């Protein structure tokens, strides 16, 4: 195997991480499904019935892409950051560091598993939502593309967070103080065109706006920003994360003294 690609190591990490999710099935699958269902009952059925349709789409249906984004995004970060932070915390990271495995392979294993888990969750939420509201997907391929790009990008971001954090508090604080506000203000629950012009302009600095907008376009062909720009911004953020990860492993930041 020397010199080549250690696919067995990638597979070992991937399986290990997936097994962890299925072991804690209540926490990793049932709870997001439950909370999403609650969103649909409260905002979709109860309050949503009093809100006007947005560009011809009922509010309940309008919510679906935003809610899927909200969940997959936060789950990607949580899965990936915990996946790499926990071995650092317990010390089992020694085995990863001493294995004949490259940076790329480590990232593929952890990020691949985290992205897969949130992708599965996104699909489960999509299916769940169909029980509550009328969902239609205009561009299934683009829908999947945006979903995969989002899960991969935010799993990369979560992976970085898990490397940077030196305590459970830091692991929680970024999702809580940065990611949650960005997702709530990123148009998950509204179209940014509903905002006053000043806040519309501010919103364009929020990367989540582009994700939600592009993703919603793949459902209903309505978008706050041009789809090509959405796609470009998502790819840009992904490349930025990859760049930082490459630097982390090159310098051994927080991993090797």
């Amino acid at each position, binding site marked *: 195997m020397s*010199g080549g690609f250690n696919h067995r*190591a990638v597979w070992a990490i991937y399986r*290990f991480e997936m*097994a962890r999710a299925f072991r804690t099935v209540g926490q990793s699958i049932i709870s997001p499904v439950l909370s999403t269902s609650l969103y649909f009952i409260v905002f979709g059925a109860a309050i949503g019935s009093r809100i006007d349709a947005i560009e011809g789409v009922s509010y309940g249906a309008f919510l679906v892409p935003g809610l899927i984004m909200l969940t997959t995004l936060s789950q990607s970060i949580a899965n990936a950051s915990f996946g790499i932070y926990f071995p650092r915390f317990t010390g089992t990271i020694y*085995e*990863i560091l001493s294995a*004949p495995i490259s940076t790329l392979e480590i990232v593929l294993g952890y990020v691949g598993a985290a992205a897969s888990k949130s992708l599965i969750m996104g699909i489960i939420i999509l299916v769940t939502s169909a029980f509550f509201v009328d969902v239609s997907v205009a561009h299934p391929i683009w829908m999947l593309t945006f979903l995969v790009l989002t899960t991969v990008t935010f799993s990369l971001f979560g992976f970085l967070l898990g490397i940077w954090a030196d305590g459970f508090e830091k692991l929680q604080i970024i999702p809580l103080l940065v990611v949650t506000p960005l997702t709530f203000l990123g148009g998950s629950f509204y179209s940014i065109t509903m905002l006053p012009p000043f806040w519309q302009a501010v919103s364009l600095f929020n990367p989540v706006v582009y994700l939600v907008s592009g993703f919603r376009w793949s459902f209903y062909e309505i978008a706050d920003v041009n789809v090509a720009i959405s796609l470009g911004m998502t790819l840009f953020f992904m490349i930025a994360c990859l760049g930082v990860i490459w630097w982390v492993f090159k310098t*051994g930041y927080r991993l*090797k*003294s």
Partner: protein
Amino acid sequence: MSPILSISNVSKTYRSGHHALKNVNLEIERGEIFALLGPNGAGKTTLISLICGIIKSGEGTVLVDGHDIARDYRAARESIGLVPQELTTDAFETPWATVSFSRGLFGKPPNPAFVEKTLKDLSLWEKKDTKIRNLSGGMKRRLMIAKALSHEPQLLFLDEPSAGVDVELRKQMWEIVRGLRASGVTIILTTHYIQEAEEMADRIGIINHGELILVEEKTALIRKLGKKQLRIELNDPIETVPESLAAYRLERAQNGDALIYTYDGTATRTGITALLADLAQAGISFADLHTTQSSLEDIFVDLVRRPK
């Protein structure tokens, strides 16, 4: 055959400025058990971590089975198994899953028969499906050895294998290590128990303040151990040792109040009887006699306490 491990001019300075290793040179032969002895903080774990890739490499080169640990890290690391000092395991996994995981991580194809054999060799087979957190400390320690052996390494590092381990378990650990050596694995263990080094090792290296200050065959050290000293307390101090006693190479101590005779305690003839007769012949009378034996512990303490 080329050595399994070759360390040349290795130095390591941590970002804090701590000079953890200073120009270490060492070669490990295939099939030997090498004990790296030193007080806490001497650099034992740093040396192992550097070879295994857990910390960044410093200056110098390390070849494992002829492969450079930096340039050819995959081949080098495939040959190494590491059992770290801390008991770090995935509490919610089972021994079977974690050993299979380790094997995959090191790029080896699945081999249930080998995993089974490894678990059986380490008396963990009955516990293969038990959650690791429910295993005893001794079982966890053995499990970490099983993980390190999962990819059939040629070189095994055991960092403080008996730290915090009771006497019974320590003996068990020694049995395991001997069994591994018999199967052809080269073993490097670190310890601060001198008894452990004496019990197990073919060769002993002593490290202190990041410097490898001594590397010697254990049997050679035991020969040093075999050297005993006879101390003869004299009734009247003497200025010089008489010419007739020159053959005994006696040393004067306490301004001539005592004489010290160094002899080989393992020899059949120690020369003590002849010496006492010759002393009487020379008219030297003595008040007391006693013998002392320098232990490996004395040598060790002497070496590591020596000012830099």
